[in-house]
Every structure is written in structure tokens, then in C-alpha cells.
């Protein structure tokens, strides 16, 4: 994971690399959970465009799929969904 770049002269520079979960499992921050009803989903990609954590993937076949490991539960997807296919439920609920 850690790559050390050696510039001229032999000094070592620590350089950060892109990793998933740089602030830990951010899904643990969540107290409300977005749940998608893919029958209502029209594949408009609004939730995917706006998701601040980039955890929603919309595919024509499957509809919107959320990666709950890192979803922070902000609810932006619920607000932008034009067909109300996403609802928030309390974490730990049904």
C-alpha cells in the first residue's frame, strides 16, 4: 500500500496512494439507511451523480445498488430521486 518514491540523491519521500476507506468504514456513521425499490427506479442516474460518497451504482439491468459499507446515510439520494424509489429507514430496522 505504501509506496516510497526515491528521488535523486537517495532521500525517501512518503507518498499517499488512493485507497478505499481512508477514514475507516464510514458506514458505521449512519443512523438512517437508504433503501431502494428498484421497481420504481427509472435508471435516471440522479442518485449516482449526486451521491457524495460515490457508493451508488446504477445499471440498466439491476437498478440502483448501494454499498452499505461506506454509505454515510446523508439522504441526498432520497431528496434527488424523482420517482421516490429510495426511502430512509432507521438503522437496525426492517
Amino acid at each position, binding site marked *: *500500500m505504501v509506496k516510497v518514491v526515491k528521488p535523486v540523491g537517495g532521500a525517501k519521500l512518503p507518498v*499517499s496512494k488512493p485507497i478505499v*476507506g481512508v*477514514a475507516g468504514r464510514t458506514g458505521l456513521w*449512519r443512523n438512517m439507511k437508504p433503501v431502494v425499490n428498484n421497481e420504481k427506479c427509472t435508471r435516471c442516474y440522479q442518485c449516482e451523480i449526486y451521491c*457524495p460518497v*460515490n457508493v451508488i451504482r446504477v445499471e440498466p439491468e439491476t437498478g440502483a445498488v448501494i454499498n452499505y459499507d461506506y454509505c454515510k446515510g*446523508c*439522504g441526498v439520494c432520497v431528496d434527488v430521486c424523482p420517482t421516490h424509489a429510495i426511502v430512509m429507514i432507521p438503522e437496525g430496522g426492517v
Partner: protein
Amino acid sequence: MATSLERRRLPLPHDAREGVLPGDAACPGCPIPMALKVISAVFGEKAILVIPACCTSVIVGTYPGQSIKASIVHVPFASAAAVASGISQALKARGVSDVHVIAWAGDGGTADIGMASLSGAAERNEDFIYIMYDNEAYMNTGIQRSSATPKGAWTTTTPTGKVENKKDVARILIAHGVPYVATASVGYPHDLYSKLQRARNTRGFRFIHIHAPCPPGWRFDPQYTVRVAKLAVETGLWILYEYVDGKLVISGPSRPFQDPSRRKPIEEYLKYQGRFKGVTSDVLSEVRKYVDENWKWVLKMATP
């Protein structure tokens, strides 16, 4: 295989989906990763982001990781434009032409602390893109007022509401005579995307001012980030335009609101935000006057 309709709706090129990685340190509902996603869609990994002290330096994380797939240079507060100038000159000397240098700073690092180096780089017409994402206060350190905070807004250092108007940085940059100046909003990512594309194909100093509603700092529920960003445009408080080659063009999302009767009442925008709870009717009428004068200036500039 996506149908042609679905392909048309695709907002960002699909290979850029992984440009911003999940699990960054942003607050829930933060507009900054939304804008960074659009940047990664335009530039991919061919970008060097110069980030002074601001929310983003926290969001992208600490060693050994970072949350975006681009090179990042973390620099002191006042030096974003100076360091970006140096990097772009170094790339030019080495003959690298496909990598873009982007200075990505907050409103504090642009309108207050970074103003001198920004103005210097604009005057020299250095070849890089300067992006100011404007969350209208020093959010990272605990919501202190900046010169980009609007009139009437509560912050921890203006407990009764700010008295002065917002500093219009885009207008200052237009006065520098740089090749490209634009205002954008996280509520309109397609508009931001096309502006970044145009900036990418322009040489010289380019400046983009992105309006970015901050849920904890503006005191609204995280799910309304996009709604608040759109309301700022629909009420006419935030005007989207582009200034290219000495001509100002009002952008699509703002075009209907040239007509004052089509603008939503400002109260619609203010009611979502706890920071405007104490706004009196006197301040409100001053804000309305400010909006009208802003529009008057934009329309005057837009007429050939």
C-alpha cells in the same frame, strides 16, 4: 448494454466512476466530493490538485491513503495559486502537456487569505485552473465568517448575522482580464461538467467559482444539499454565468431567472437554513436589493 436514451442520460463518462473513492472523511451530505466527482470525470487521473488548508485537505485523508485518484499537493493557506504557478511552469519546462494543474481552494483560501497570490497568478496569466468552492465560511475550523459569507448569515464570529455583503470573487477575476471565468453550483453537475470541459480546452488562467452548501455550517439537514444549491439559483441569489473572451454568457440553469417574476421568493431559500433564523425584514429587503443589483450588473455585461 445501455439503450441510446440511457446513454444520453449518463452524466459522467463511466470510466470516471471510480475517481472519488468511498470512505472519505467528509461530513454526510458534503458538496465537496460531489464536485470532485465531476472534476475526475473531466480530467481523470491527469490532474494535479493543489490544495491549501481547507475542508478538502481533511476530506482526502491522511498518509498512507487519499480518497481521490489524482495527484495531490497539500500547501500552506496563502500559497495555492503560487504553488500551482510553479507546478505548471515546471510541467511546461519538462514538456508535459496532457496534465492539468488545478488549484482547489475554499472561500477562505481564495477570497481572504489566498487573494494576493491569486491576484498575482491571474495578472501573470499563469496556465492553470483555479477552482474556488464556496461554502461561505471557514467551516473546517468551526464556522467562522469569511468575506464570502452572505449578509445576514449567522456564524460563530457573527452571532447576530453578518453585516457586510458577500465578496464577489468572480467579478474581481473578470476585472483581471483572464481568459476564462465561470460560476457554477454543485446543484447543476452537468453545467459544471461543461464548464470544466471548456476550461480544459482553454489556455492561460482559468477561474471557476462553485457554490457549495455546507449542511453543518449552514444548519440544514444533510439530505437537502442539492435542494439548497438549486434554490440559490432559482431565487436568483446565485447566478451561473461564463465569461469568455471578454463576453459574459448567462448559463442555462440561470437563464429563466433573468425575469424577476420567475424567481422564487428568497424566503424559500432561507427557510431551509438555520443560519438565517434571525434575519429581520430590514436585512431581507437589503438582500433583495443586492440580488437585483447583481442581476443588473450581469445583464449589463451580457448585452453585447
